[in-house]
């Protein structure tokens, strides 16, 4: 395997992006920021890969318009996944492993505020027997939360504690949509939104974009003092049909974590867009109390669809590059109720 590292990360998040759903206006400064971080120009990027969704943009081929942000003369080597950009990062990592390219810039973007996210995401379900019922994301998450409550896997206080800790951590994150000190008692006094979930148990609908630069071996060493070396990168999936799964578990998260080698991480950025999904992921990834979980505040403080998974990896890698973490994981999820999971482990070497 080739040594590949994250050497750059940039992001923007906001409650509502005022510009177009192709988000070109947001991607141009993000890509510019990465050129500054690396000292590179477009000519140094061997491969480009993006993650986004036309269902979110409400227009076809929205990712083609977004390519304007790169500038394509001379032509660029480019690809796209209709998934969170964490999977675009995986594609870029594989591309570098083939030896065909040495560097890659991966970006993701999404304007959830253009539509009604919880309905849009219903379209990822089984189109024959589930989608016709329009079970939206929040309702499915509420069923999952209910199952855990009734089995004493978590209680309302545990969930409120996840929210309070996340909001407090987000105080240091300039991109967080929600942040600040809130008490568990105050959170529990809030009305139910989708029983048993309260509004704060659900990630805020928000917009944003993010990008990461990957580089192999000496290319990475030449631009970063302490690159975040990728030592494990795996993704797994569970059955799509909700009825055949134990919704309180996520075997695919456990399998991805084990294959990626998460043991010994001191920091974990996990993509749990609902508060009760954090205990599920802690269990599946084997994260004990010694591990700092979501120091950025995590998705409960900002959930830019199709880049939020990439942001988790970026936040983990940033801490490794800064030397505040030696081994960290970034986790991304897709599909209903933690159905599909990806784990990227990054390590610093002195």
């Amino acid at each position, binding site marked *: 395997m080739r040594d590949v590292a994250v050497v750059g990360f940039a992001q923007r998040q906001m409650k509502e992006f*005022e*510009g*177009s759903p192709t988000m070109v*206006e947001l991607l*141009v400064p993000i890509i510019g920021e990465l050129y500054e971080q690396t000292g590179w120009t477009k000519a140094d990027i061997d491969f480009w890969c993006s993650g986004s969704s036309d269902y979110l943009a409400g227009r076809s081929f929205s990712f083609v318009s977004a390519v*304007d942000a790169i500038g394509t*003369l001379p032509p660029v080597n480019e690809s796209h996944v209709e998934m969170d950009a964490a999977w675009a990062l995986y594609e870029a990592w594989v591309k570098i492993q083939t030896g065909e390219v040495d560097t890659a810039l991966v970006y993701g973007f999404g304007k959830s505020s253009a*539509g009604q996210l919880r309905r849009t995401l219903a379209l990822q379900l089984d189109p024959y027997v589930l*989608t016709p019922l329009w079970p939206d994301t929040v309702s499915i998450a509420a069923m999952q939360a209910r199952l855990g409550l009734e089995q004493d896997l978590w209680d309302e206080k545990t969930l409120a504690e996840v929210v309070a800790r996340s909001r407090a951590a987000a105080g240091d994150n300039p991109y967080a949509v929600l942040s600040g000190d809130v008490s568990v008692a105050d959170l529990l006094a809030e009305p139910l939104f989708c029983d048993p979930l309260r509004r704060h148990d659900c990630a805020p609908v928000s917009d944003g974009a993010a990008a990461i630069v990957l580089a192999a071996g000496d290319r990475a060493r030449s631009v970063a003092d302490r690159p975040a070396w990728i030592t494990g990168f795996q993704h797994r999936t569970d059955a799509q049909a909700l009825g055949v799964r134990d919704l309180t578990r996520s075997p695919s998260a456990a399998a991805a974590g084990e294959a990626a080698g998460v043991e010994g991480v001191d920091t974990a950025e996990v993509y749990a867009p609902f508060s009760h999904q954090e205990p599920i992921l802690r269990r599946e990834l084997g994260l004990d109390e010694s591990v700092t979980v979501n120091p950025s505040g995590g998705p409960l403080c900002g959930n830019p669809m199709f880049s939020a998974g990439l942001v988790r990896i970026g936040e983990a890698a940033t801490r490794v590059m800064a030397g505040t973490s030696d081994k960290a994981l970034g986790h991304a999820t897709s599909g209903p109720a933690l159905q599909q999971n990806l784990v990227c482990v990054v390590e610093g070497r002195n």
Partner: protein
Amino acid sequence: MTTAERSPVTGILTPVQLDYTYAASAEESRFLRGLAEGKILGQRCPRCEKVYVPPRGACPVDGVPTRDEVELPDRGIVTTFCIVNVPFLGQRIKPPYVSAYILLEGADIPFLHLVLGCEASEVRMGMRVEAVWKPRDEWTTSMENIDHFRPTGEPDAAYESFAAHL
């Protein structure tokens, strides 16, 4: 089993309805507001100096924002075109009619519009055309303020002059 139970289910109907609020970008907004005043506004890339109309958030060649505004004339040439012969739902003009790429004078990218005012069979590449605007009191922030383009009758542009825009 009855015959009905044995026959395969060959299709199901799953209506999908999603509503979106489209926000025009800052560049698109300036363009649309210009149209409401009878102006066609493009933008020039600071690097390659190409003029885009409608303007866009980034020059697709260089990946940099195009900030310099350029007011363009409402006349240009047909670069390429098609004759619409097929009727479809919502069609507002009786076929045959012409949809064409119009390259305005001073612009580097053509946009799609209608060419009327002559037989469809007379439309050709390089034909010079001008905008026919709707009455001023009907103008809104819409491309439809220009009802269509019509031939000016001037000599055609030489192929070499627009070959790079095809």
